[in-house]
């Protein structure tokens, strides 16, 4: 039942473009954000939508992105809720 990422860690959203249903908005794909918290575990929406009988159950994280990173401007933050397989650990320099 362990969660891979902890609050404060930097993660990168995988740069995906799946053919089917997914819950990764386009505007965060490839971007680096900060884990705010782990919300718990839920069946992966992509597999639920595809009719997989026993969809993977994964941790879901609240991930915060700086508007400047997403849009090149703006002082606000945007948080997006992402299943664990949507993200990977970012390097120390954010790479």
């Amino acid at each position, binding site marked *: 039942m362990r969660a891979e990422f902890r609050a404060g860690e930097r993660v990168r959203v995988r740069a995906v*473009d799946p*053919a*089917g*249903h997914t819950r990764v*908005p*386009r*505007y965060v794909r490839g971007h680096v954000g900060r884990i705010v918290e782990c919300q718990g575990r839920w069946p992966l*929406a992509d597999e*639920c*939508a*595809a*009719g997989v009988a026993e969809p993977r159950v994964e941790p879901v994280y609240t991930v915060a992105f700086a508007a400047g990173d*997403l*849009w090149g401007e703006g002082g606000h933050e945007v948080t997006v809720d992402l299943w664990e397989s949507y993200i990977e650990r970012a390097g120390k320099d954010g790479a």
Partner: protein
Amino acid sequence: MSRVNDVGGQGGFGALEIEADEPPFHADWEARVYALNSVLVRNGVYRLDEFRDAVERMPPRAYLAASYYERWLYAIETLLAGRGPAGEG
């Protein structure tokens, strides 16, 4: 392939239209579409994510032309098509 519903950050949709004292539903049929979808999910006819997927698969021109609950109706009809007697028609 990104779908038409994935609009975060897109420009061109214009100013907001804010309706004062908006009722929960604007027509009886909207409320009935809401109820129908709730019961179909609860009865296990389809999953909520399958419903979202069906909304998203609407052709972009039709999606943007449809009202919110017209999209729901389209998705329900799409999901029921080909699922036995209830789906015919």
